[in-house]
């Protein structure tokens, strides 16, 4: 049994070592123009409390929430069709369409969006590329396949008998959906939302390419601080702050999932 735990212990040890290095760097003084660090300080944490850095945290939270909501709304009909269609051909076609983005890679997909959003393929009435709107589109597209698969799995577990029973008692299709299907698919909605929200919090490539330097999310700021400003202590402090925020949000989401599971 102990041997079985060895790989897990190894992974935890590696993470703990990385986190302790992050923590150590975050409390060392940054010396501009040098890779040497100074003595112990909390200046890195006070430094990242400026409007510029907190703004990036706020932008990340807003974009993550908006991405989660839009992904859910856009994915639910596809997931429903995937789970409920009687045609094997339609199901296969939908599955291929849903899974296709997984085979192209995030960078390729995002570069495609650079062309689409940049008025070279379509002329948009409002600027899309290098705006939060454009980043949102890219993030939703990136998240949809996973959300669709999670929702489809949840919906397929709902016995259609419940929906038929509601309909036989006179409920309209909209009412059946609102009172039966939607509540029973809540565990899938919550788990899909938590996953999409969590990974959007750490999004990097999409805001980097579609944001044109104007839309900065947490991961982009950490990179900027550490790799462009050579301020590794500042980058470590910001990464730690982001980690604490993410853990707090995920703890809240975990409780929400538990409530949803009990409700279902």
């Amino acid at each position, binding site marked *: 049994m102990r041997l079985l735990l060895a*790989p897990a212990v190894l992974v935890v040890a590696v993470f703990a070592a990385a986190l302790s290095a992050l923590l150590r760097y975050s409390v060392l003084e940054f010396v501009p*123009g040098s*890779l040497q660090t100074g003595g112990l300080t909390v200046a890195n944490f006070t430094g990242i409390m400026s*409007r*510029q850095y907190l703004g990036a945290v706020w932008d990340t939270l807003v974009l993550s929430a908006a991405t989660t909501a839009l992904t859910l709304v856009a994915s639910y009909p596809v997931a429903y069709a995937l789970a409920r269609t009687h045609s094997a051909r339609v199901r296969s076609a939908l599955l291929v369409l849903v899974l296709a983005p997984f085979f192209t890679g995030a960078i390729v997909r995002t570069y495609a969006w650079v062309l689409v959003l*940049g008025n070279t393929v379509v002329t948009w009435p409002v600027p899309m590329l290098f705006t939060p709107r454009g980043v949102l589109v890219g993030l939703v597209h990136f998240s949809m396949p996973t959300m669709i698969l999670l929702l489809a799995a949840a919906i397929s577990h709902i016995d259609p008998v419940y929906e038929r029973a509601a309909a036989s008692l006179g409920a309209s299709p909209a009412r059946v959906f609102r009172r039966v299907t939607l509540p029973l698919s809540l565990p899938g909605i919550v788990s899909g939302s938590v996953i999409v929200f969590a990974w959007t919090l750490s999004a990097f490539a999409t805001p980097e390419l579609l944001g044109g*330097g*104007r839309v*900065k999310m947490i991961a982009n700021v950490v990179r900027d601080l550490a790799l462009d*400003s050579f301020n590794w202590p500042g980058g470590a402090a910001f990464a730690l702050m982001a980690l604490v925020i993410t853990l707090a949000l995920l703890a809240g989401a975990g409780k929400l999932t538990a409530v949803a599971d009990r409700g279902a």
Partner: protein
Amino acid sequence: MLARLAVVTLLALCLPFGPVAPAHAQNSLVVSVWGGNWKDTVDRVIGKAFTAKTGMPVEFEVGGTIDRLAKARVAKGSPLVDITFTTSHVGRLYVSDGLFAPLDMAKLPNAKAAAREALRSEYQMGAWSYVYTIVYRPDLVKEEITRWSDLWKPSLKGKIAMPDFDPSHIITIAALMEGGNEATWQKGQERLKALKPSIVAFFSTDAQSQDLMKTGQAPVQVMLSVNAYHLQEQGIAVKLVQPKDYPGVVGIDCMSVMAGTKKADAALAFIDLALSKEIQTELAKALKAGPVNGGATVPAAFQGQPGIFLTPSEWKERGYILNDEVRARNLPAWREWFTANIVK
């Protein structure tokens, strides 16, 4: 099976920590350089000639500027590479951490023919030069651009892109326009704020910059001359500006010997070869960059072009060279101010 897996894991854990140079690298000279065209050119022009002359193979460790710096830090004391190519101001960071060895100038006879500006410090010898200047697409920008001050014209609103990872160049130019320099950069802050409506995008990589130019999203850019020549080679009709009011900002990529290398003599021989007239001529031709050896020749079409300096007076008059130490020290503050006031 599980027991065997556990034994293998434990054996792996028992291996000495720290970077270990691969066996084949022990007989070769290992050079750290950027990937793509940079590595290919250094290999083809310097590496092959070095091997032909000395019999010693040359291997390459490629990566981005900061990735390679991070690797060098981890391997401090027993470097994985013998020579590092990097930008002059990032080289200052290597120096601050004791990662470079002082250059033994007695073993670099070809350095005597090098421009004075190429010796960036006792640890860093320039390999080639370029400038950050204005580059634009005349098919998308009807008005001719001839000066830095033209960037502030209302007709260029929403057409300009510039790097956000290193705003040193535009910050310095704005300061120069207001009677300051990189040390008194605050003088140019208000002028730079006035440029904000003209900027449509910021780029973090050369590839992004080139894409913005190709797609026409940002047809005017403050760009590396080498990249602009590369775009011209690809058939994109871009024009490099030799600004009439203030010169372009010079970049010099440097070669350094890693502290602790066991092949210091071979590393110095490599650098000396790279500084020779013949190799400098080939490098200038291949990279479209300026040679640092005054005796090198460049194709006629490139003489007098941005980033190509052949005489001491050209080095002095046609390019502005930032103080590397000031740049390395101020860059974090520049980036923070630039992000808060221009990018956002």
